[in-house]
């Protein structure tokens, strides 16, 4: 049950002057790193993680969630102004956003992106506030078989979403799980995959892995990046205001994008990327003038930008209610929680209720701050987006080094960071998305522990997974997701053979 006293305590903690300032710093920092060229939000947020290490838990989580939402918004600025998406989720915004800039409507596009992000974020947070507690309540009744099914199906769905090849996704998940196995086996205390090295006895922390894959890998490829040419856009407050007709045309796409994004955010995988494409497609289909899309249609900015923010909030539901992150961004939030000694999930609301509600309240506050901050300061953010990689990349490098070192005060973690930086660079060249690897590392131990416990409960009869309603249904979904492409291909082959005959 949700206790009103804890909600009020959380809200009052979020409204303390220190936390309000921290929230403001978080959204400003997030937006700044979000607009930085060549650095995605995952790399940017992981780079800023060490700032939270010595903070109080509530303040630390408020800062990191501010950075999370700010970073998600920041990516759109470079898409609209320089036709260079700050992150993969902003690629769609370039289609119409940049066209609007060329037509002299950059200010309106940026304003609609900010308003859309605010509305979608608010819709998402309202849904999160009402959905997370009952799901967490329900999850308290989940046993190891249900958690095993959730994690396994999450990984299976993710592998269908991230890459065109299942083989490559499974390969990265398997590698992630193997990396997670290094160290002491929690069930038996046996040392595994340590090569008798004392450095590996405690296992490999996932923070240097994320920082390496998403942050340091960018530094390795720094010489391949070129400076962006600044565009002359009038970003004065007067020119920021969208016209009445632009506002009217954007209302529907913003609301639809926010809802669509939130729902897609609940599904494992890169929801913030998929949701932008889904929203763009939906708006084009619903539009009376679909031919305007790609030529500077405001709906093409409003829908995807709202969907992106809705998905970022939706992705927090599994993290906060089940303790399971299904994409790299919530995984970084998970690491921020764990550094503070808080395990997100069903018990968080009973063990750390004030922290939970302070975090939710700060998300609302941060969302308002983002809107207030982004509209008048868009000119400054636009200038930041022209920062040269020659200056930016050395700073990213040193932040990554500090972040990796500070987790356990160990230079070995810096070595791990460098190894995964090289791997991240290689994966980028191979056009392989590293998120299955990250989630393999994070969810691997959960998968192993819950399978071991389930096997004990079922006395070795693993078919009993299908006798429990939740685990059975989820595993059937997982089987369908995995085998449907094979069945479809088989049907196609039979049909073409028949028509050929």
């Amino acid at each position, binding site marked *: 049950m949700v206790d009103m006293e804890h909600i009020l305590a959380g809200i009052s903690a979020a409204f303390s002057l220190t936390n309000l300032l921290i929230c403001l710093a978080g959204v400003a920092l997030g937006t700044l790193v979000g607009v930085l060229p060549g650095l995605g939000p995952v790399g940017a947020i992981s780079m800023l993680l060490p700032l939270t290490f010595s903070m109080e838990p509530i303040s630390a989580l408020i800062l990191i969630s501010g950075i999370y939402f700010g970073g998600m918004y920041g990516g759109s600025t470079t898409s609209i102004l320089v036709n260079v998406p700050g992150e993969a989720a902003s690629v769609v915004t370039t289609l119409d956003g940049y066209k609007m800039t060329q037509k002299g409507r950059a200010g309106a596009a940026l304003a609609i992106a900010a308003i859309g992000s605010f509305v979608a974020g608010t819709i998402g947070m309202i849904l999160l506030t009402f959905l997370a507690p009952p799901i967490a309540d329900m999850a308290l009744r989940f046993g190891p078989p249900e958690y095993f099914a959730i994690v396994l199906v999450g990984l299976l769905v993710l592998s269908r979403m991230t890459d065109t090849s299942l*083989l490559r996704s499974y390969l990265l998940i*398997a*590698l992630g799980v*193997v990396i997670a*196995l290094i160290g002491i086996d929690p069930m038996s205390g046996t040392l*595994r995959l340590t090569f008798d090295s004392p450095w590996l006895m405690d296992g490999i922390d996932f923070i240097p892995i994320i920082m390496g894959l998403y942050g340091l890998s960018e530094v390795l490829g*720094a*010489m*391949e990046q070129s400076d962006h040419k600044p565009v002359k856009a009038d970003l004065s407050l007067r020119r920021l205001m969208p016209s009445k007709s632009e506002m009217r045309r954007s209302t529907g796409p913003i609301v639809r994008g926010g809802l669509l994004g939130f729902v897609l955010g609940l599904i494992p995988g890169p929801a913030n990327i998929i949701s932008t494409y889904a929203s763009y497609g939906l708006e084009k289909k619903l539009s009376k003038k679909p031919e305007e899309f790609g030529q500077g249609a405001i709906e093409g900015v409003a829908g995807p930008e709202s969907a992106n923010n809705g998905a970022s909030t939706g992705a927090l539901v599994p993290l906060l209610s089940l303790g399971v992150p299904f994409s790299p961004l919530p995984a970084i939030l998970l690491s921020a929680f764990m550094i503070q000694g808080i395990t997100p999930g069903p018990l968080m609301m009973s063990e750390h209720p004030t922290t939970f509600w302070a975090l939710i309240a700060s998300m609302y506050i941060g969302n308002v701050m983002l809107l207030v901050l982004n509209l008048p300061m868009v000119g400054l953010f636009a200038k930041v987006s022209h920062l040269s990689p020659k200056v930016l990349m*050395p700073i990213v490098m040193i932040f990554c080094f500090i972040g990796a070192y500070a987790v356990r005060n160990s230079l070995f973690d810096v070595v791990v960071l460098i190894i995964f930086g090289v791997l991240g660079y290689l994966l980028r060249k191979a056009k392989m998305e590293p998120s299955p690897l990250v989630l393999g590392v994070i969810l691997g131990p959960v998968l192993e522990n819950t399978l071991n416990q389930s096997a004990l409960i079922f006395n070795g009869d693993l078919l009993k997974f299908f006798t429990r309603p939740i685990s059975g249904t989820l595993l059937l979904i997982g089987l369908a997701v995995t085998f449907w492409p094979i069945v479809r291909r088989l049907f196609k082959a039979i049909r073409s053979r028949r028509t050929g005959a």
Partner: protein
Amino acid sequence: MMNRTVIRARMIAALLFMLAGLLTLWQSRGLRFGTLNHIQAGFFPVVFGGLLTVLSILMLAGLLLTLRRGRAADRETNGHEPVFSRGSLAILGVFILFVVLTYGFGFLLSSFITLWAIGYLLGLRSWRLMMLALFTTASIWLIFDWWLGIYLPPGVWI
């Protein structure tokens, strides 16, 4: 259509993953596999090490087939994208230098030297380079050591 850089990178990745899978299987030799009633410490390493090996062999075979088809189909895989191998290797060298210098001389000195080195590699020169190295090192010390109280290693030789 995949270009040559992508195919080459995927081949290297597949070989690395295969090596990782084989090493996992080799390291799991002494671990007990257990039964379905009682899964033991060797179960996951053997299953996932095996999976890693098999999947990487499949990926490698697929890539070799693509290469062959590419050659047959009028070298469709000839496209290239810029890879500055020397530059990336030099940057990697700076990363390694950072670890060695931090171990010996501490975080601050190594930060200054590596920032200077990487800035130089990226094309910064004269006062801009010095400003980058000096101001970033000073800001890092102020933010992390002085303000946030994060322990930065002093080095064993000084």
